[in-house]
């Protein structure tokens, strides 16, 4: 049975103090150039929570604005505002403020590694509990907090990672082992942030219409962190730990990794598991990444821009068996960058886009929307990395022209007609193809589009195991209803057969009665 997309959620957490404390651009600068102008100027470029909420790409991410509407607004979007688009919540999720996110991190911790100052907890617990996605079981996990002196002790004397709010020390994440680097406070903090943001994504997914948490039997996490200890660095598994906090009593799961391509790999795996009937309902999810906070901050500060990379991202997608309504994942025609594909841009795009299309007997223009790398250009352009989605669309269009499927004159309009502007924060795996799945589902259910392609790319070379990078792609099609199997009898035919049988029966009764007379 085909696999369909039954729901999708997207969340952000605004974490400005984590930019300063946990983003690797900043932590590296503190080591190599501690008195740099960048570190001095950076705090004045941090956004308030209100500004982060009003920022239109963030409103798009949580579902309050369609990507096409965002695309109609001139770039950069730094100061662009739309009346009414200043909401914390959207149809896909929410933008959680830092103080509540710290409490969520603590609530997601099952080893007493995260502790917050009791005054801080007292000041923000009520707001945290007022969130409709926070159920009783999570509320019961909130610790009342510890004395400020304990926080200072663990940070100053016990190698704990500090948690700051408005530059004030309000908590810590302590190490989980004395000598194991894989359980250091640094690793535990990164993993806890990823876990908490994935939990928040899952909680929002569970509130959506038609989602029943008892039915979910498998969860796949596809973030870019690794959890384990000195004997198994990436042993895992985030997925089950996230399912536990969200109360998915009937689920197990595993972690799938592939750098930024991880979500698309996980999405294809999950869809295949559903299609194989191994599991009927599978969730693919990921939390965000502290290391990438402020990643391009030097260029943003140099150009007088805000630190846009102050958001932790997350998402969760529910896949289930064909209901005749929701969009169908085409597991039979997937694109893949193979070992032999090479690195020439033309080969890369051919393997990911035109090869699966050819296999399905389709042309480039048969896909209504492509979702490649949906990074927000406000972030990447000032840093010299260009407009990443646009670069991908140009390459797809160029290949289409080469194959004779598109006129040269249509090159300029292809990105608008078959693509979108990027709106996702540069959180690695978070913008890679998957931000569009929620919008895609809605647009297909509304009959606006019929076919889309999700493309994920991953920089494997960063792990120093190979010089290769990677990519996979998958198509999503509007549901045309559950087709009857060949040879099966339709409802109309059954009605006709019954009608005929009754007519024959009536005729035979009539004949019998005439004979009797």
């Amino acid at each position, binding site marked *: 049975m085909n696999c369909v997309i039954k729901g999708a959620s997207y969340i952000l957490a605004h974490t400005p103090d984590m930019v300063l404390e946990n983003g690797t651009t900043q932590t590296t600068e503190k080591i190599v150039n501690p008195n740099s102008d960048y570190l001095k100027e950076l705090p004045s470029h941090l956004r308030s929570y209100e500004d982060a909420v009003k920022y239109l790409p963030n409103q798009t991410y949580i579902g309050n604005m369609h990507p096409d509407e965002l695309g109609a607004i001139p770039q950069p979007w730094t100061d662009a505002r739309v009346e009414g688009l200043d909401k914390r919540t959207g149809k896909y999720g929410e933008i959680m403020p830092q103080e509540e996110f710290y409490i969520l991190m603590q609530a997601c911790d099952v080893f007493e590694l995260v502790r917050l100052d009791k005054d801080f907890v007292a000041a923000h617990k009520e707001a945290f509990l007022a969130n409709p996605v926070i159920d009783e079981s999570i509320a019961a996990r909130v610790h009342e907090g510890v004395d400020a002196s304990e926080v200072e002790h663990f940070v100053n004397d016990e190698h704990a990672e500090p948690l700051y709010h408005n530059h004030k020390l309000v908590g810590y994440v302590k190490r989980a082992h004395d000598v194991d680097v894989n359980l250091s406070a640094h690793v535990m903090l990164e993993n806890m942030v990823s876990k908490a943001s994935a939990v928040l994504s899952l909680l929002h997914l569970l509130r959506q219409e038609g989602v029943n948490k008892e039915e979910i039997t498998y969860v796949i996490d596809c973030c870019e962190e690794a959890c384990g200890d000195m004997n198994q660095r990436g042993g895992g598994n985030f997925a089950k730990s996230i399912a536990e906090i969200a109360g998915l009593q009937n689920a197990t799961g595993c972690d799938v990794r592939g750098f*930024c391509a991880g979500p698309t790999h996980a999405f294809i795996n999950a869809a295949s598991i559903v299609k194989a009937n191994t599991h009927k309902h599978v969730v693919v999810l990921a939390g965000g990444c502290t290391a990438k906070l402020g990643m*391009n901050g030097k260029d943003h500060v140099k150009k007088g821009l805000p630190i846009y990379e102050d958001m932790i991202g997350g998402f969760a997608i529910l896949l289930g068996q064909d209901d005749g309504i929701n969009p169908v994942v085409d597991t039979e025609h997937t694109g893949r960058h193979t070992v032999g594909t*090479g*690195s*020439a*841009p033309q080969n890369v795009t051919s393997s990911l886009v035109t090869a699966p299309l050819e296999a399905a007997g389709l042309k480039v223009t048969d896909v209504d929307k492509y979702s490649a*790398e949906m*990074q927000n250009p406000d972030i*990447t352009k000032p*840093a*010299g*990395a*260009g407009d*990443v989605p646009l*670069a*991908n669309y140009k390459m797809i269009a160029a290949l289409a022209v080469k194959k004779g499927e598109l006129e040269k004159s249509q090159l300029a309009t292809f990105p608008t007609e078959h693509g979108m502007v990027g709106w996702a924060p*540069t959180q*690695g795996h978070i*913008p890679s193809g998957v931000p569009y799945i929620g919008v895609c589902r809605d647009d297909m259910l509304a009959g606006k589009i019929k076919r889309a392609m999700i493309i994920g*790319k991953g*920089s494997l*070379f*960063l792990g120093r195991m190979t*010089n290769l*990078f990677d990519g996979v792609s998958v198509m999503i099609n509007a549901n045309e209803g559950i087709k009857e199997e060949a040879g099966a009898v339709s409802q109309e035919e059954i009605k006709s057969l019954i009608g005929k049988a009754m007519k024959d029966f009536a005729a035979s009764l009539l004949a019998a009665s005439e004979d009797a007379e």
Partner: protein
Amino acid sequence: MGFLEGKKIIIIGDRDGVPGPAIEECVKTAGAEVVYSSTECFV
């Protein structure tokens, strides 16, 4: 003789643009000596 004959080249490629190995192949055909090549990820 290629127009990069005798030149030493440092390559920094971009995963979403032109990756290092692809640039490497091009400049080698122009006679350059590649002394360093890497691909960076900016996202």
